[in-house]
């Protein structure tokens, strides 16, 4: 028997489909797992936040220093373009508008789309896409809103997640007890989805694995920092790179970067040239 643990997947050993295997290996590669679990989260946003994105890379977007892939929007339908294979809605949430395209593959999709009309408040779940600087939302789900408290609630959530990502999250790396208590917010409707970074309705394991100790976090970004310092430009510079620049380039807080650089220096992977400047120790 090759399975280390006695679990259900042992019965399917060799079958290939072992989802728990994938999650077991995740902690061994903290940087990639953090990227994956970030992308799986759902972030409530305003259209203004989407329009404010300065850089839109191929690997996705980031808002407030956090990778964002799937988003929730709440707004009014101002235009509908109905084609055979897809339906494009213009959703205006009072902070701006964005086109949301829902592809129609099956009957459920057309049923979903048929109930939507112009002037209706809707909740949109989707993925932000920027194609040739034209920004749109690839829509997974679009539903009419029946309880209008949802509108205020959505914007308050946007505010909460923004404040969490800009104020609480950076501070958490310095907290001695690791993770502060995460508020569990009950979702107003069909709460099967995982929301944002601060609360998850289904499980907090993913999240607590990431932020349990300073150590794990440092390990997570140390590969990023090393990669950055190994760039030809950084290697060529005699003075090295200051931690501020590293933090800015990697979109990580300066505190975290400094701790990581200290750790890497103690391992002998980087060394300091002058005060707060670091260089990779290449052979």
């Amino acid at each position, binding site marked *: 028997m090759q399975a280390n643990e006695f679990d259900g997947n042992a019965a399917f050993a060799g079958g290939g489909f072992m989802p728990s295997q994938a999650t077991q290996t995740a902690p061994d590669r903290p940087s990639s797992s953090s990227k994956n679990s970030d992308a799986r989260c759902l972030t409530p946003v305003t259209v203004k*936040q989407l329009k404010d994105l300065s850089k839109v890379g191929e690997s996705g977007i980031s808002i407030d220093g956090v990778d964002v892939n799937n988003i929730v929007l709440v707004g*009014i339908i101002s235009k509908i373009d109905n084609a055979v294979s897809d339906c494009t809605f213009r959703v205006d949430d*009072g902070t*701006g*508008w964005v086109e949301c395209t829902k592809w129609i593959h099956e009957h459920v999709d057309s049923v979903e789309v048929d109930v939507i009309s112009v*002037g209706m408040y809707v909740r949109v779940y989707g993925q932000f896409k920027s194609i040739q600087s034209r920004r749109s939302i690839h829509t997974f789900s679009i539903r009419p809103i029946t309880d*209008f408290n949802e509108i205020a609630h959505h*914007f308050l959530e946007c*505010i909460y997640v923004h*404040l969490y990502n800009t104020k609480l999250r950076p501070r958490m790396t310095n907290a001695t007890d690791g993770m502060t208590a995460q508020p569990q917010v009950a979702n107003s409707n069909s709460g099967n989805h995982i929301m944002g970074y601060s609360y998850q309705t289904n499980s907090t394991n993913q999240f607590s694995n990431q932020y349990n100790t300073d150590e794990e976090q440092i390990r997570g970004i140390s590969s990023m920092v090393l990669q950055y310092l190994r760039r030809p430009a950084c290697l060529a510079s005699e003075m090295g790179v200051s931690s501020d620049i590293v933090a800015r380039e990697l979109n990580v807080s300066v505190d975290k970067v400094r701790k990581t650089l200290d750790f890497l220096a103690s391992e002998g992977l980087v060394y300091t040239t002058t005060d707060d400047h670091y260089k990779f120790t290449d052979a």
Partner: protein
Amino acid sequence: MDTSSPAAFVNGGLLRMHIGRKVRTVIHVTRSDAGSVMGKSTDGCQLVVRGSPPAPLTSYVEVIGVAENENSIRAELWTNFGDSFDASNYDQLCQLANGELKHLFL
């Protein structure tokens, strides 16, 4: 909805900050005539909304339009919000959206 100017969340007290600009607010309808609706804002101020409301009108209605002066709005879009609505929640949102979190909205 005219999307060239986003609509600011306002209550009665904040309306004066956006005179001439697009605003959105929820009022608790007290009286409704053919050309205007009078209602209480989420912070208790009396507001007048000019325009043609939908019929029937529910107790709470969201109005998106242009602020004419500190207690009247010329409505462009009306949405019935039903008969039960958390006004204090909405009021808090208005204050936050006009405060230091303004950059998320306008």
